[in-house]
């Protein structure tokens, strides 16, 4: 009974989020961006760019990172990680495109960069990379669908081109993950000194790599709680160690760069920019590094969940700081999203969760380590209350 009410509670939350999102969508497309957003001539980019696009693309970075580990470096141990990660990445990119349709003033012209060229524009490069990489992701993900449908021929064709496809995916990801940072290189006088640096593209790439792995852990923990399907813990612990290394490199390099720009003073100034920065570094780097460096923590379900959740929120904070707060602090313009911007964002996130749940239920996503459960048992798993945090599953 309690399990049932829990399920209907989340269904109700989902319904409310979708309803609010649809209402906001109506206002956005009938009355325009002025009526639906807090954007202005002084502050032209807001939540939909700062969160939906910058974070959406970054959080999906696990896709190329794990593909490279398994197919280029041939570390077969990580194979079970591949499918859930690919699913996240594919859904992530599709939802970023959905968010773009909301943010663009003329969404029906989203294809224009395909035929109208400006190779000097970072946005042009990002547009091409995102489009090509979404195609690559679709091809990399399709064998899972073909497997379900028992279509052998297309699977064989895709297996034959898998290595060049993976290499292409890694290259495209490297380019646009870093280019999202390069978008802000042209506003040195507008972005606060704690975030503006010529190294922005490099930092965007490294932090995306780190959060890509953290996201794999986070999602596995979540789907373990929600669907009783998750990856093996030793594997997640190994990924947690990669997160430590990547985050440590990021941390050292970030502070070295701040020192080189004489911007370290702003960290300790005790003012808003400093605190925002400290929050981002603590959540995204310091806490995950500390937690995951301890073997006891990274081998426990709670430790993995808390550490990866911190890494993910620190990453989100960083992207919001570059895309919103850092620009506010640098220009003096003010921006706080309207309920409609928040509703659309929440709707897109909720869609992501729902699609992930649907796909992992109907497609062989977690298959390799699935217990030999019959249909009935699996249904029971789905509705039973999630195991308490830290419990062995």
């Amino acid at each position, binding site marked *: 009974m309690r399990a049932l009410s829990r399920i209907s509670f989340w269904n109700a939350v989902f319904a409310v989020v979708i309803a609010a999102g649809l209402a906001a969508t109506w206002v956005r*497309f*009938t*009355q*325009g*961006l*002025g*009526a639906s957003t807090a*954007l*202005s*001539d*002084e502050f*032209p*980019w807001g939540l939909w760019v700062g969160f939906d696009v910058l974070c959406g693309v970054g959080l999906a970075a696990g896709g190329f990172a794990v593909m*490279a580990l398994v*197919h*280029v*470096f*041939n570390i077969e141990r990580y194979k079970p990680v591949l499918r859930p990660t690919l699913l996240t990445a594919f859904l992530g990119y599709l939802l970023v495109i959905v968010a773009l349709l909301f*943010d*663009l*003033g*003329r*969404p029906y*012209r*989203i294809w*224009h*960069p395909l035929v*109208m*060229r*400006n*190779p*000097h*524009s*970072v*946005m*042009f*490069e990002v*547009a091409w990379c995102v489009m090509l990489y979404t195609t690559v992701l679709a091809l990399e993900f399709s064998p899972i669908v073909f497997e379900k449908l028992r279509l052998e021929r297309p699977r064989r064709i895709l297996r034959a081109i898998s*290595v*060049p496809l993976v*290499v292409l995916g*890694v*290259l495209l990801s*490297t*380019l646009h993950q*870093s*280019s999202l940072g*390069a*978008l802000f*290189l*042209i*506003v*040195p*006088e*507008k972005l606060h000194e704690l975030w503006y640096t*010529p190294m922005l*593209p490099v930092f965007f790439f490294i932090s995306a790599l780190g959060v890509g792995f953290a996201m794999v852990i986070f999602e596995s923990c979540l789907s373990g709680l929600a669907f009783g399907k998750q990856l093996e813990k030793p594997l997640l612990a190994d990924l947690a160690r990669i997160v430590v290394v990547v985050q440590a490199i990021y941390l050292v390099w970030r502070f070295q760069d701040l020192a080189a720009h004489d911007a370290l003073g702003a960290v300790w100034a005790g003012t808003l920019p400093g605190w925002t920065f400290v929050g981002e570094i603590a959540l995204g780097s310091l806490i995950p590094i500390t937690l995951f460096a301890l073997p006891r923590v990274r081998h426990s379900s709670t430790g993995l969940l808390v550490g990866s959740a911190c890494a993910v929120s620190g990453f989100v904070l960083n992207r919001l700081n570059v895309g919103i707060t850092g*620009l506010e602090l640098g220009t003096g313009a003010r921006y706080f999203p309207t309920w409609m911007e928040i509703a659309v964002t929440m709707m897109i996130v909720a869609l992501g969760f729902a699609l992930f749940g649907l796909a992992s239920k109907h497609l062989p996503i977690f298959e390799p380590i699935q217990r030999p459960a019959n249909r009935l048992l699996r249904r029971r798993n789905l509705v039973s209350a999630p195991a308490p945090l830290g419990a062995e599953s």
Partner: protein
Amino acid sequence: MNVGVLVDTTRCVGCNACAEACKEANELPGDIDAKLTSRTWTVVEEHGDTYVRRMCMHCADPSCASVCPVGALYKSDEGPVAYEESRCIGCRYCMLACPFEVPKYEWDRPLPRIRKCIGCIDRVRDGEVPACVAACPAEATTFGPRDELLDEARRRIREDPDTYVDHIYGEREVGGTNVLFLASVPFGQLGFASNLPDTEMPSLTWQALSKVPHVVSIGGVALLGIWWIVNRRMEIEKLEAADAADRSSATNGVLEVEES
């Protein structure tokens, strides 16, 4: 020809005739706003006892045109930075990128456009002067080739050093602009951005973008190389393992048969 406009703030009387003429020439609705908006492409602002006319600076290497993914904003051969509405996807990157915060957006329209001074490009191509220049009763605004305007500005400073500060705003800012300003007080006091570098802003992004071919070529070769080496090593390991298994089964053949 690379034309521009020289605005001499010491001559401006603040009548806003330029703003009115601009509205008429570009068919912009509504009254003249206090600052630049989607409906007001030029306007006279008061800073102390100085009148300063705002308009697009028409940079030599404009940030807005450089960041535009579809080339909707472009630097014309004549000098003005113009806009081809049918290309624009509405990403508003130009608004973020412009160091002078000139491009404005039609926030109240479901299908909005970017709006800004386009230097009366059609009039200029027809051999006319921009509407704002033609309307100025005080000769505060001069139209002509940029190098001639610079000569004129230098002449005015040289002949009347007591009136002018020795600075032509737009001569070097962000690599130079086609709209130039003269003033009697430092430009920072007149609301001009005074923290801009002398280098073109697009060069900042180009430093990153120009590395794309290297990332693709070197990265591609490196990744395929790593795959080749690792994959071959694993194949050899598999072969050796199979060999070893063969050999051991050959020597222990009897045992195997017995076991099976």
